[in-house]
């Protein structure tokens, strides 16, 4: 029997939108607080781009060296921030996680924030994803990905190793 396209479980997504753009220290603290909440599946960091080089004008090609482009540690992973963090989208297992998540945000942020529930990260593979990853086999039409949580986390054309990390993989295995 040909298997149909897999759909992830009914999860809940929340956008945490602080009143200010976050410095790396605050972003690190917030992300760690969120990471400690049991039932968090995915986090997506968004914000204002911090380029390595100037891309327009007479200074094109000069290094920017933005002081906020720093390596931060979240859980057991370290990665370099490419943005000044403006919001964090969090996906959790079910409604019971929302309150602990909100409390984690209150601990992590020294100022007010919006806590909006909505649909922010796609849960199903789209044509572009199939174009990139393909089917698992001739008889299995699920997308050819080991971990489907990757879907919607990065642009299909971007390199995942620069923009994607799996936290707590060692604990799971």
């Amino acid at each position: 029997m040909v298997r149909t396209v897999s759909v992830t479980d009914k999860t809940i997504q929340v956008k945490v939108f602080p009143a200010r753009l976050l410095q790396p220290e605050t972003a690190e603290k917030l992300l760690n607080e969120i990471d400690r909440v049991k039932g968090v599946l995915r986090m997506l960091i968004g914000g204002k781009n911090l380029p390595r080089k100037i891309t327009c004008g007479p200074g094109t090609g000069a290094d920017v060296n933005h002081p906020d482009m720093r390596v931060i540690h979240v859980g057991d992973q370290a990665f370099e921030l490419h943005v000044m963090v403006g919001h964090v989208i969090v996906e959790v297992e079910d409604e019971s996680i929302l309150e602990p998540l909100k409390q984690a945000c209150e601990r992590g942020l020294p100022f007010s924030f919006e806590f909006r529930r909505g649909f922010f990260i796609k849960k199903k593979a789209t044509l572009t994803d199939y174009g990139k990853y393909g089917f698992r086999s001739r008889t299995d039409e699920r997308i050819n990905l080991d971990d489907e949580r990757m879907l919607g986390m990065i642009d299909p054309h971007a390199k995942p190793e620069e923009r994607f990390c799996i936290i707590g993989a060692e604990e799971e295995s």
Partner: protein
Amino acid sequence: MAYKPQYYPGNTSVAENRRKHMSNNVEKLRDISDEDLTAILGHRAPGSDYPSTHPPLAEMGEPECSVREVVEPTPGAKAGDRIRYSQFSDSMYNAPSTPYWRSYHAAINFRGVDPGTLSGRQVNEMRERDMEAYTKRQAETEMTDWGLSGLRGCTVHGHSLRLQEDGTMFDMLDRRRLEGDSIVMDKDQVGVPIDRKVNLGKPMSEAEAAKRTTFYRVDNVAFRSDAEVVEHVQTVWERRTRYGFKPQA
């Protein structure tokens, strides 16, 4: 009785600040040396001569022209300076000036200006030495809070963004930043590093910025709280609609 320009209606602090900007009756808050200003503008090396695009007018032998006799050229035009620009970006979180008011200030109080007014930034082209005088006036006075405004020749992004945690406007190219309690700038307006750290003084506190701003905001002074301004704006729009679109009707 001598004529006194009225500039702008309204009884709120924002209307009063708008009148101040238009009339150039602005308070000087800081000193920026000519060399520092030249460095952050980035058009020529500090201390060097002004490059010229044509010989001084006195040497050119201008044709006889009644208009040329009446209109005194600006110092930059007289010397044959190049046309150069300065561009400011202002945060919508109560920055003291707005692009429109920077343009009004330039057009009313300076000559030989070519202001370009955009939603979040304002660029002005002038003869180089005239442009430096104009920029210095805006940079040293209450028209600019260097925490909430920036001199940005390119990558002006910041006007409509949330402020950073330290209360300053986001700058993608990190041209100026808060160090201690002062704003310093170590790149020119297009992001090329310069050989000095220019101290631009202390940023305004939130309360002071709210007092000096020309932005109407619901969380500070709401536009609709100023009945005279609302009436003025409605009158302008009504007349523009009635007569501006089809004056012969």
